[in-house]
């Protein structure tokens, strides 16, 4: 208040001596207050100040009044809204009809500077209607100030002049009513008394207090000694402290090392990344500390942290440092499990198309292979010599040797046909028996009429004409029966007969095989493997593979374990004594780098094409479309309590990739731990230990 008092002292002087700059400044502060229409604030000025002003103003105001009215407005547009001229270059027309051009507007800095330079600047007012600056005279400012205070504009006008009664009437000297004063004007009010009693009671009882309550100190020593352990226990549930925010790394520095700043291209490429994965913070460098701006997300990040603190569910999670080595299963070392095929020893070249199927004769001396170029070739295993070529004309699907050594017959499936070829191996007696066996009548039709047994025109052998496509052929262990699938048929060689016992098979059969020792028969459809007893002709069990699409099955020579390969890169090992579900599922793992590095780009790189067991060694193998063959150790113990041991041994690479698949077939040598693989690159390879 003391400033204001000082103010009121200086103001009267203001009139006499025209303006020392400090006083003007102070006036400025008042008018600016008033201009912001803060009427209360300005009326807070002491009243006597206003009085003094009044006195000093009598003389000056008359002149200003007259002079202002005389000036006619420069602009003649009349009382129209100024926004009509908003877009125009002129503001209106002067009295002679010429356009009045708009002046350039001052910006804030200019007006501020003008205010600093010129002490009288505060009096200047911009007249929008005439587009010019008008400087108020001292008298005009006084006028405005009076108006703002709610007084009459001119000091000489007295609003409270004594009332003059201009008219005369009869009872002029009397009051309006002549009634006597009522009694209640002279006795104390009952209501007021009641109210006072109320207040007294309220004050006595402490309902109304006049003195402000004492302020207690806001802070005090909250934690005394921490030694009292009983009290320093937290109530309620276990407290889970919120994880601390991540500390800043080098990249958040205001001046990070060059390598942390992404290039423009990298920054642009961030736009392509999915929004949630996009880096939120892009490092950049500022030349000096003073050029670092305020961080625009400061409040937002603080808010996000708050949200995390009170909205995010918290759980205690144990984080353990796992050694990746410890995750790998403990398996016996591969050296102990030797011998197994590991090195490519021989290559059998000659086919012109992908080799679809191979088969090794039971003697281990001969290898037959069927290819998509329509030929079947007979190879000598030891020196890779091609002994014979049969040209069938249609792409070969499957070849299979008769398991009896004395009957060197080859079953070949091609298109809708199965051929039983006489390989003309073995001594004369054997040859004779084979010829005898393969002699067929011109056309012995089967009862069912599905298959016709016809002697082949070109080569010595029988031609079995099927009505449907044949994909796989499998011989019974005694060499008399063999089975073909898609539509599962049983053929008897000695009687030249065909049976169709599985007429109502659910699903499409993928392959069918005989049990190695007993009269049990396995048919695999896309999802299941069904096991039939042939003698009793009934279903024994149904194995649920859980696979997408079964591509091949193989049975352990012991007869109790079955291997199923699938087109989604999985191999299932069934222990049929154990359950109808897989004992173990192995999955092909393709390293991502492999795909990138070696340009193996195919739609299904992991399809397993074939699985095979070794007849005597505890080995099994799988071939897949990613040009690899895997060799596993698969030991089955005679002790029924011991589970089979499966150890992956080797990945055999070497086949070149081609468009029609990688490795199409793999078979073991009957006696040696050798593996033959047939590739889509028309090469057969022999891997030895």
């Amino acid at each position, binding site marked *: 208040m003391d400033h204001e008092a000082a103010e009121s002292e200086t103001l009267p002087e203001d009139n006499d001596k025209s303006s020392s700059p400090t006083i003007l400044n102070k006036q400025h*502060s008042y008018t600016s207050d008033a201009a912001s229409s803060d009427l209360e604030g300005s009326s807070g000025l002491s009243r006597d100040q206003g009085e003094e002003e009044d006195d000093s103003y009598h003389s000056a105001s008359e002149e200003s009044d007259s002079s202002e009215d005389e000036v006619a407005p420069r602009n003649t547009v009349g009382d129209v809204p100024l926004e009509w001229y908003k877009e125009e270059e002129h503001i209106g027309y002067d009295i002679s009809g010429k356009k009045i051009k708009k002046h350039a507007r001052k910006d804030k800095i200019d007006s501020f500077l003008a205010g600093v330079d010129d002490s009288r600047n505060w009096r200047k007012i911009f007249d929008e209607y005439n587009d010019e600056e008008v400087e108020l005279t001292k008298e005009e400012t006084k006028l405005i100030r009076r108006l703002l205070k709610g007084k009459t504009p001119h000091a000489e006008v007295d609003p409270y002049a004594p009332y003059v009664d201009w008219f005369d009437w009869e009872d002029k000297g009397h009051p309006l009513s002549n009634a006597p004063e009522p009694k209640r004007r002279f006795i104390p009010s009952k209501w007021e008394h009641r109210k006072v009693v109320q207040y007294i009671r309220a004050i006595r009882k402490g309902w109304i*207090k006049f003195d*402000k*309550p004492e302020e207690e100190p806001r*802070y005090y*020593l*909250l*934690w005394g000694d*921490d030694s009292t352990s009983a009290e*320093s226990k*937290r*109530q*309620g*549930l276990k*407290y*889970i402290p919120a994880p*601390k925010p991540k*500390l*800043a*790394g*080098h990249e*958040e*520095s205001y001046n*990070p*090392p*060059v*390598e*942390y700043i992404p290039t423009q291209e990298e920054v642009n490429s961030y736009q392509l990344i999915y929004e949630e994965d996009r880096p939120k913070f892009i490092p*950049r460098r500022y*030349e*000096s*500390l*003073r050029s*670092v*701006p*305020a*961080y*625009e997300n*400061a*409040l937002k*990040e603080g*808010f996000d*942290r*708050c949200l995390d*603190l*009170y*909205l995010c*569910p*918290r*759980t205690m999670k144990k984080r353990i440092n796992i050694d*990746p080595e410890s*995750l790998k*299963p403990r*398996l016996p070392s591969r050296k102990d499990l030797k011998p197994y095929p590991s090195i490519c020893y021989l290559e059998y070249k000659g086919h012109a198309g992908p080799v679809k199927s191979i088969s090794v004769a039971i003697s281990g001396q001969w290898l037959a292979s069927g290819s998509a170029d329509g030929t079947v070739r007979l190879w000598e295993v030891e020196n890779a010599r091609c002994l014979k070529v049969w040209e069938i004309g249609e792409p070969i699907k499957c070849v299979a040797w008769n398991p009896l050594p004395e009957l060197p017959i080859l079953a070949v499936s091609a298109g809708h046909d199965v051929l039983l070829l006489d390989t003309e191996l073995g001594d004369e007696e054997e040859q004779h028996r084979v010829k005898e066996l393969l002699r067929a009548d011109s056309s012995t039709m089967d009862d069912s009429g599905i298959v016709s047994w016809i002697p082949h025109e070109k080569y010595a052998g029988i031609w079995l004409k099927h009505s449907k496509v044949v994909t796989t052929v499998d011989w019974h262990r005694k060499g008399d029966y063999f089975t073909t699938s898609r539509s599962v048929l049983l053929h008897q060689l000695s009687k030249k007969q065909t049976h169709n016992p599985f007429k109502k098979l659910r699903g499409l059969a993928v392959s069918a095989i005989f049990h190695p020792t007993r009269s049990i028969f396995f048919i695999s459809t896309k999802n299941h493997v069904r096991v039939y007893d042939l003698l009793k002709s009934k279903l024994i069990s149904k194995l649920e593979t859980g696979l997408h699409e079964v591509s091949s099955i193989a049975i352990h020579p012991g007869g109790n374990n079955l291997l199923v390969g699938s087109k989604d890169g999985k191999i299932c090992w069934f222990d049929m004594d154990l359950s109808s579900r897989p004992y173990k599922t192995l*999955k*092909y*793992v*393709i*390293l991502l780098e492999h795909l990138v590095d070696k340009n193996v780009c195919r739609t299904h790189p992991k399809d397993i094409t074939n699985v095979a067991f070794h007849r005597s060694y505890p080995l099994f193998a799988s071939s897949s479309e990613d040009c690899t063959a895997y060799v596993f150790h698969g030991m089955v113990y005679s002790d029924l309590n011991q589970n089979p041991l499966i*150890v992956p041994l080797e990945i055999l690479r070497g086949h070149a990739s081609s468009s029609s698949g990688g490795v199409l077939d793999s078979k073991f040598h009957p006696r040696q731990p050798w593996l033959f693989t047939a590739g889509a690159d028309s090469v057969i390879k022999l891997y030895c230990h």
Partner: protein
Amino acid sequence: MRNEGKKKEGNAARFITRNKAVKHLQVGLPLFRKLCILKGIFPREPKRKVEGNEKTYYHQKDINFLFHEPLLAKFRHIRSYKKKIKKARAKKNRELAERLIDRQPTYKLDRLVLERYPSFVDALRDLDDCLTMVHLFAALPAVNSERIQVDRIHNCRRLSHEWQAYISRTHCLRKTFISVKGIYYQAEVEGQKITWLTPHALQQVLTDDVDINIMLTFLEFYEALLGFVNFKLFHSINVKYPPILDPRLEALAADLYALCRYIDVGSRTLSETAQNSNLLEFQQPYNEKKDTRAEESEVRLAQLQYQLPANEPGALMHLMGDAKGADEEDQDTKECKSLFKSFKFFLSREVPRESLLFIIPAFGGVVSWEGDGAPFRETEEDITHQIVDRPSIGHKFLSREYIQPQWVYDCVNNRDILRTDEYLLGRDPPPHLSPFVDNEAEGYIPEYAEEIKRQIAAKKQVLPMPGLGDRDLADPGSLLAEGVIDRAEANEANEQRKKLQMLEKQYHDELNMELQGVTFSAAHSEGSLQTPAGDVDVDEGTGIELDQVDNELTLSKVSMSRSRRGLLTAIEMNKQRKEDKIRLLKERKKRAEFNRSG
């Protein structure tokens, strides 16, 4: 609560969804939020989400805990009280309304602070967020429309200054880092590492995508918490809290004491902002600018107070010094205390003063600044370092070094006085590295970090030099040790020499090429043609081994169970990502170097 026939145990009984909890407590959602924030109750993750995955679950015990909270009743009371005022106003009973407004019920959070943090160490452990938030609000503008009130901002400023005064006085600041987001500080109080972020001292931006009410609720609790923590800390060094620091004032009457307190809240900010920059002065209201005698003295007093904890050896400092005996201090504190011991700093107008006034005294330096109330002037002879942040300066004193502010921060982080030549006025300072990164664990060490390490090592080796000769002769053990060092040195020197030779050779080759008339670009393209071929060779050489490793990996993966395989893949992917990042950094580094040379 539990209905008949409902489960008595298990996840369904133990956890309750938010909506149900709100209904159970019979409060509105905003009040529920407020209670949760003040009480520190957070949702918990049940093992099985009985009522759906998308819902938030609270533990039933937590909700019961809220249910019995006296604050809940208090809030209800406040609400009904507000209704009374409203009613009185509506009935034009101004007298009653005013009387009611005068004695509005308030609540205190001290009990909650104690309940959430039963021991002081617990409170310190959770102080990070609190400090960051208080410092953030200390830099915010007061906005009435957003209900950010001036006195709260001032309170935040006061609390943050008190905290900083304590940290600075007890020399327990450990690390600092200037990031784009602000300045990080890490202090160690009672064995707890406390890290907080202060925004740059600039006008902060208020964005409309935040719910300021929630932040204010958090702030309410944090203010209480920090106040009590400050009290305890000041108490532990025998200083009265709230700080009234001028002993002359203390000796005088109580009204002066009250005035002083008033100044403490009100004019500290004034004095600082007035000093901070001339620009700010324009923004100040006019009535504050009037400097009458009385106010000037007040300002002086306030400054005095502000300096006291910061850099004047006043009563407070003596008190603190007494409290902290030399034997109490651990190695770290001693080291920190004596880092800038022999230096005298002067801050130029444009450097961030608040931060440096905090840091330099924390590490034992003496500091002054340009402006009113500074302890000493720029012209003082024994100033060793002047901190400037502008491209050039008019008049230079030869007796002192003109360095950029980053030098202080880098020195602090490395706990050593670094060479100043790279930080001198007008130069591009070397990169500013984060002290929070463990370079070895990260797998990539920036160049400058290595250089600093070398500098420090060199310094340490140089220091014991003078007494070398005698010791060498005296015992063979030290000789051996010396030998080891020598060998290391020799190795390093050898490498250096090799590098030099390489460079020289390259230079000569290039000269030759120039003589032969090969253009620069052609030479480079040749070089680039040659190098890939070499790379490929190397790749093939290692390719086979890699294949074997891969083989084994795939083989072992084939027979793994699915979950383990997933875990292993995740670990591998993580490793891969880390390696990728490092590779990218190295690539960028190489490119940058190439650009610089080419």
